[in-house]
């Protein structure tokens, strides 16, 4: 029998986290990510880990703060309104330079919005949903297998640079089922947590302090500058993206997550009709893969960003292109999903106008 199993995206994310060494999960239920805590509640006790349903999202993220401070591999998950509630805690975790993984399975918004899939939390994830100068590393898988493969990376990046990492998926990724394989993950050589984790001094070392309050403004500024030096390293080392058929493309589609699969399907149909269409799929949303656009902008005539939002990532596309070529946008919101035929129609409109 092949080693593959059939899993829902949410379940696979949970299992991948466990296999990446995550032993602490704190969360609170919300559709469409409930299979993550559900799966964690069944599996964590079997691997000697801790699953705890907190009394709220605010409590859950602060439990993550505590466990991360003690050096644990820890994760929480939620969906849009729940992630909004976690923002204060996320800022404190950043301010204390602690590693953790946060999963957001995005649903329609704003407000309670709805339970159908969306990508309208891009700004919140990428531009800083909470207060203070900071970035989250944001990973956006487009298949269940990629979500699994990125989980080890998510925890490793978090530990390597002492930053929170967000896995951003939409409700469809969480709910869809695909065959997945859990490959042996090598993991990285990671720095020791001894210098900062509050694991108990046992009378043998000075105490470690987890803190995000600094009395001296200069000290706070120095820490912010040091943190941004680490962000520079992340930008240099952790960029991930995919470029398909961009070499001869007259127009390049830009899409991430499951929308990239709709865009890919539209690209293949458009190609069969003789339209030269390419696709850039950012996998890291922060750091944003600017270099992919710098390559594509040399040859292509225009870009079309497709999102399940009113237009959020498209702003980063425009900044990456920096006015060199027109950037168009097509989006659906509220839980509506773009179709390949609607994208092809947009492509034809743009290409028609170019002639």
């Amino acid at each position, binding site marked *: 029998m*092949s080693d593959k199993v059939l*899993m*829902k995206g949410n379940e696979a994310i949970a299992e991948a986290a466990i296999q990446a060494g995550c032993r602490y999960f704190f969360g609170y239920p919300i559709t469409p990510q409930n299979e993550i805590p559900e799966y964690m509640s069944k599996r964590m006790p079997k691997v000697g880990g801790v699953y705890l349903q907190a009394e709220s999202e605010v409590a859950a993220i602060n439990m993550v703060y505590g466990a991360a401070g003690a050096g644990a591999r820890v994760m929480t998950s939620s969906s849009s309104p729940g992630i909004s509630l976690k923002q204060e805690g996320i800022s404190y975790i950043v301010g204390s330079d602690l590693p953790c993984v946060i999963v957001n399975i995005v649903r329609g918004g704003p407000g309670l919005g709805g339970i159908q899939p969306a990508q309208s939390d891009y700004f919140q994830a990428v531009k800083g949903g909470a207060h203070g100068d900071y970035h989250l590393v944001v990973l956006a898988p487009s298949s269940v297998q990629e979500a699994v493969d990125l989980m080890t990376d998510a925890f490793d990046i978090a530990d390597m640079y002492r930053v929170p990492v967000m896995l951003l998926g939409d409700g469809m990724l969480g*709910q*869809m089922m695909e065959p997945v394989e859990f490959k042996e993950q090598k993991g990285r050589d990671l720095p020791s947590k001894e210098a900062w984790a509050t694991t108990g001094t046992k009378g043998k070392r000075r105490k470690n302090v987890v803190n995000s309050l600094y009395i001296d403004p200069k000290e706070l500024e120095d820490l912010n500058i040091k943190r941004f030096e680490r962000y520079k390293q992340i930008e240099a080392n952790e960029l991930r993206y995919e470029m398909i058929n961009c070499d001869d493309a007259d127009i390049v589609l830009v899409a991430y997550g499951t929308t990239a699969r709709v865009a890919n399907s539209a690209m293949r149909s458009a190609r069969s009709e003789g339209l030269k269409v390419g696709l850039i799929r950012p996998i890291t949303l922060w750091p944003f893969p600017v270099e992919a656009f710098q390559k594509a902008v040399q040859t292509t005539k225009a870009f079309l960003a497709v999102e399940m939002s009113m237009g959020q990532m498209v702003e980063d596309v425009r900044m990456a292109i920096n006015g060199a070529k027109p950037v168009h946008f097509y989006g659906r919101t509220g839980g509506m999903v773009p179709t390949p035929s609607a994208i092809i129609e947009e492509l034809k409109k743009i290409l028609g106008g170019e002639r």
Partner: protein
Amino acid sequence: MNNTRLNIFVGHFGSGKTEIAINFAIHLKKYYNKVSIVDLDIVNPYFRTKDVTGILEHKGIKVIAPMFANTNVDIPALPAEIISLFQDKEYRVVFDVGGDDIGATALGRYYKYFANEKYQMFFVANMKRALTNNAGNTIELLREIEKKSRLKVSDLINNTNLSYSSTIEDLLKGQKVIEKISREIKVPIRYITGKHEILSQLPHDLKEKAFPLRLYLKMPWE
């Protein structure tokens, strides 16, 4: 053809109940005038029987689903109309139940009707699902479903598959485990389900159990 009026499909979430229930309802419609399918899923927010209402109604199958299914709210209220299917005995009814014991809880509400009429409860098993990958954990789930629904599983369905990566080898390995389950709990395997291309490779002695599926639930890029 199956001659029990009430047909219930239960199993682990993601085992393939919905696709099988849809195909079963369409199959029943070839033999019976009045066929209805009930989307009794109170667990899943997406990818459910209600998605294909148009296709089913076009075939003359009555679809009853929670009124807020596939909307933006999470209110799994079951419509009163379901009761009419217990009263109008001319209907052949397919119940597509939500996954696991949690989904089966919805059946408990109709216990008094099932207690008064013969039913068949099909347990759908996909041995390629992570949490039901052996006889032990599958029987454990089956018993939980029986407890919550207060009904008894009458038939097993082998739906071992890996979606678009399915193979006959996986299906046959799944068959071995489900045969073991069948012997242990003394419940027969009624159907082996899958796409036609895969079922056509079944050995001769298993061919009579083959129930080929057409897949109706599609992703937006398919």
